[in-house]
Each structure stands twice: as C-alpha cells, then as structure tokens.
C-alpha cells in the first residue's frame, strides 16, 4: 500500500492549484505501475517532453501551463524540435516551427531553464552523487545514474514535468539502493587492448549489452582507465537505444563500482558474458548498413550532444579540410557548449570547413535543409540506430576521423577497419 504524506495529499487535493493536482494524479498512477510503497522528494528534473511529437503533447503542456503549473525544483530542458536560433536559415517549415515554439513556450512559462540539450550533464551545475532527481531522455538518465551516481528512474515525457511541478516521485526502481546493484556481468578484459582503446569500442559495446540485458543493471569489467566521459556517454546512449538500460557500472571507473564486489553488493551476477570481437562486429553490422557505392550526403556528429572536449578533438581533424559540397556536415550541440566552443574558435573551424552547427536540437528531430538524405555517416550508435526510421536514410558508422574523411570524399572512407573485420 502506497504511503502518502500530508504534502502529497494537499497536492492531490488541489491546494496548490489544478495543474499540481493533475500532475500529482499522474505521478501517483505511475507509483502504482512501479508498485511504490512511498514517495520521495527530488532536487532537480530534466524535461524531455519539450520535443514536439504531435498535438497531444502540446495540449498537455499548455493545459498544465495555463492552469498555473510551475516547477517546484530546478528543471533543465532537453532538446526541442528546432534550432531556435537558426531555424529560418535551415528552411524549417513555418507551420512546424510554430508548433515547436508553442510547446517550448509552455515549458518556459512553467519555469524550466532553456538549456535545450540532451546532455544536461555537460552543464557546469550537475547533480551530486546520491542526489534524487527525475530525468527524462534515455541517454541522460543512464549517464546521471551511472557516471554521476545520481538517482533517477527512467522518466518518460509528461511524467518528467509532473515530477518537477510536484517535486515528488514514487520511491521505486533506481531511486532505491537495493535496486542499483549489478545483475549481469560483461567481461571485456580478454579483448585486445587495441580494441578497448578504440573510440568505436564504446558505442558498439553499449549497443551489444543493451540488446542482451535490456532493463537489467549490467556491470562491465575491463574498461580501460582512459575511458572518458564522452566514451561513457556513447556507451550509455547506445545501451539505452538497443535496450532499456537506466544504469550500468564500469568497474574501477563509475562511482558505485570501485570494485567488482562493490558493483554487485549483496547480489551475485545472474549471468556472466565474455564479450567477444564477434559480438562487437555483429553490433557494427546491425548499425552500419551502407552500400559501399552509395554517396554520403549527411555526416552527423553529436548524439548525444557534442561536448567541448569533442570539439577540441574535431578541430585538428578539420585542418585544411573542405567538406564536399554534396555533404551536409552537421555538428549537434547544446547552446551552452556552442558558446564555449565559439570562444575557443572551435565552432568557427567547423563552419570554415564547410560544415554547420545545429544547437538546441539534432538531425533526427528537426527537418534538415538539404534532406531527404540517403546515406548518413556518423560516429554515434544512437544516430545510427534511429537514423533509418527517423531520417529515412541508410547509415554508416565510423570513428570521428572517419566521419571527417567521409565528409571530404562524399563517400564512406575509413582509415582502416582493423579489428572490425573478421579474419
């Protein structure tokens, strides 16, 4: 039986207005779905409902906003359906832009911060270890839980804003210590060091274990200590696309897994998987289905949003490079990161090479000026997974340097496939 506090009951009873009452009703219906026994306070939220998918979501947000809905905790906004700064230049149809802006306005009226990024963990302020938060956006959820050690369930669109308005969530799932220990063990320490140090390893590994372990908590043993936040971002985003992973532990790297035994706590691994090169090759084959003869017409970087560190890696790769005129070379990033990249001359380097920057959104969520595209080259498993369905194009996956090479040549060029090709 779910225990409610006086605060919960007053929210539900409408003492804080009709929007808070509606939000609390939805939160409590989800408490039932999660079989929660109690509620808890959150200290922050990240709202994914601000992407326009249709008039239902717009009506929902406008109903909350017009009946006095106001966030009770700091709330950041995920990407929207537009680059709010450049949509006219990008040729986005005005009718679509109007809907996307109406939805954005509703969330801004409720007091959300216009961060417009799917990587809110790149913000200067990010949740502390152990903080109870309500985050939407599958990649942000897995990053917050795994890399920051904050605690969030997988919040879907609508529940995120309801949690932010009420400040209350069901005490269930990944909010609770007992559900955060590892369940399945994935061992990668037998893989050659050259594989584990290759940037392509992370998205492929994530895609593989997400597919097999789905919603369970995986523990990865054997990631090199050089794994960067961008590597872990790529890993988590891939696992949350092929599966429903909300938390992973990387032994010796993520904060709740200083050791293998700490990662599992009182649990024992219910399954142990020794990841093979063939598993990674299978993931690559599933994601990368290019026809070798087909020209590349879209190179997409930044899913999840490009970080400042990635801009710094990209700049030397673009030295002296001119993107082929037939290729739309797009770097998707948050507006805060864009400002930093601009200050360092990194954004300028993209534009000088003939590429463009897209802030506030990404290529699978906003109409492109030069679409329909036929073949996308990307270094992101998440773009590769959703590209065919959302953009309607084929996808080739490669490293960051391969993406630049392919942009220049307007066809898929990889330095060397190396271990990705079975011998």
């Amino acid at each position: 039986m779910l225990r409610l506090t006086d605060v919960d009951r007053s929210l539900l009873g409408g003492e804080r207005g009709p929007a808070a009452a509606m939000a609390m009703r939805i939160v409590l219906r989800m408490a039932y779905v999660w079989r929660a026994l109690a509620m808890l306070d959150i200290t922050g939220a990240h709202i994914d409902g601000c992407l326009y998918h249709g008039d239902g979501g717009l009506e929902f947000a406008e109903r909350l906003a017009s009946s006095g809905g106001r966030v009770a905790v700091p709330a950041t906004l995920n990407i929207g359906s537009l680059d709010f700064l450049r949509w006219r230049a990008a040729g986005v149809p005005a009718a679509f832009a109007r809907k996307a802006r109406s939805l954005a306005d509703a969330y801004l009226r409720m007091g959300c911060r216009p961060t417009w990024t799917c990587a809110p963990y790149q913000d200067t302020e990010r949740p502390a270890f152990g903080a109870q938060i309500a985050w939407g956006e599958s990649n942000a959820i897995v990053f917050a839980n795994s890399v920051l050690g904050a605690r969030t369930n997988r919040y879907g669109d609508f529940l995120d804003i309801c949690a932010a308005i009420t400040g209350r969530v069901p005490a269930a799932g990944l909010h609770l210590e007992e559900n955060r220990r590892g369940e399945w063990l994935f061992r990668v320490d037998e893989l050659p060091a050259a594989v584990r140090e290759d940037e392509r390893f992370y998205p492929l590994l994530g895609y593989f274990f997400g597919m097999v372990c789905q919603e369970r908590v995986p523990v990865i043993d054997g990631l090199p200590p050089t794994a960067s936040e961008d590597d872990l971002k790529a890993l988590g985003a891939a696992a949350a696309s092929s599966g429903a992973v909300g938390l992973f532990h990387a032994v010796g790297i993520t904060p709740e897994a200083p050791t293998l035994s700490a990662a599992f706590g009182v649990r024992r691994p219910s399954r142990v998987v020794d990841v093979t090169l063939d598993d990674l090759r299978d993931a690559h084959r599933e994601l990368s289905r290019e026809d070798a003869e087909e020209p590349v017409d879209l190179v997409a970087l930044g899913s999840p949003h490009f970080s400042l560190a990635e801009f710094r890696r990209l700049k030397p790769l673009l030295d002296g490079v001119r993107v082929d005129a037939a290729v739309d070379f797009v770097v998707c990033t948050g507006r805060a990161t864009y400002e930093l990249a601009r200050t360092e001359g990194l954004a300028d380097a993209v534009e000088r090479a003939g590429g463009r920057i897209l802030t506030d959104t990404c290529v699978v969520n906003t109409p492109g000026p030069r679409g329909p595209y036929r073949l996308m080259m990307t270094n992101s498993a998440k773009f590769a997974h959703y590209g065919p369905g959302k953009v309607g194009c084929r996808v080739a996956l490669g490293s960051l340097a391969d993406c630049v090479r392919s942009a220049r040549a307007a066809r898929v060029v990889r330095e060397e496939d190396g271990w990705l090709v079975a011998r």
Partner: protein
Amino acid sequence: MWRGEVLVGGAAEGIALVTSIPLSFWGGVEPLTGEVIDSHHPLCGEHVTGRVLVMPRGRGSSSSSSVLLECIRLRTGPAAILLAAADEMLALGAIVADELDGQTIPVVIVPEAVATVRSGDRLRVGPEGDVHLVEAASP
C-alpha cells in the same frame, strides 16, 4: 483465459501482433500512420493500428510515452498492449491519454499470454486484466 495485472484499465478486442523483441515507440512507430519504422525491429513495416500488441516490454526512448499518446489520439495506435513486465514509458503514454481525453487503451502485464499468444490470434482484453483467446490464428 489469462489473468493479468492492470497497469492501465480498459477493454479492447483485436488481432494479436506478437514480437519477442521490445519496441521503442519513439523512433519505432510513426504516429501519423501506426507503421513500425524501426529498421532494426522484426516488425518493421507492419502497422500496430487496431492490433493487440504483445511483447516482453518496451525499450529505448523516453519519448515513447509521447508517441503512444499521439497514436491513441490519432487512432493509429494499438487496441491494447500486453507485456511480460511493467514498462514505464508505455503505461505513462496510456495514462496521460486518459487524463487528457478520458480515452485510452488497456496496458496489462500478463506474462503467460505473452509467452503463448501467436500473431493472428484474436484476443479480447477485459477491464479486470483478463485476456481471452477469441479465435486462434489459422495454422
């Protein structure tokens, strides 16, 4: 008859569309048409419209609740969803449809049915989470 656990209540009847691979509604279903667009999914090209969608659970995007809501409102969505385990995104989309319009689709956890039902079976889902095989698919 199978007795399930109701996540979102309602009654519906339709032809089963069964998959053992979880489906993300965002990036997986086009709300305007109800077509499965996830090229990595075995149901790609099928339509969920009016079907009783039977699968282990959801996966992927946290916008799946949004896409399910749009599908329900545009009448392109499934008639009901049967799952083997609770899925927060799909339950949420159906709950918000109910809150907005008082109209939704049943979402039921019923692992035995998920393990048994075949695509093409005609199923009836009752308000108590009871799932009935009305007519088996012709072999």
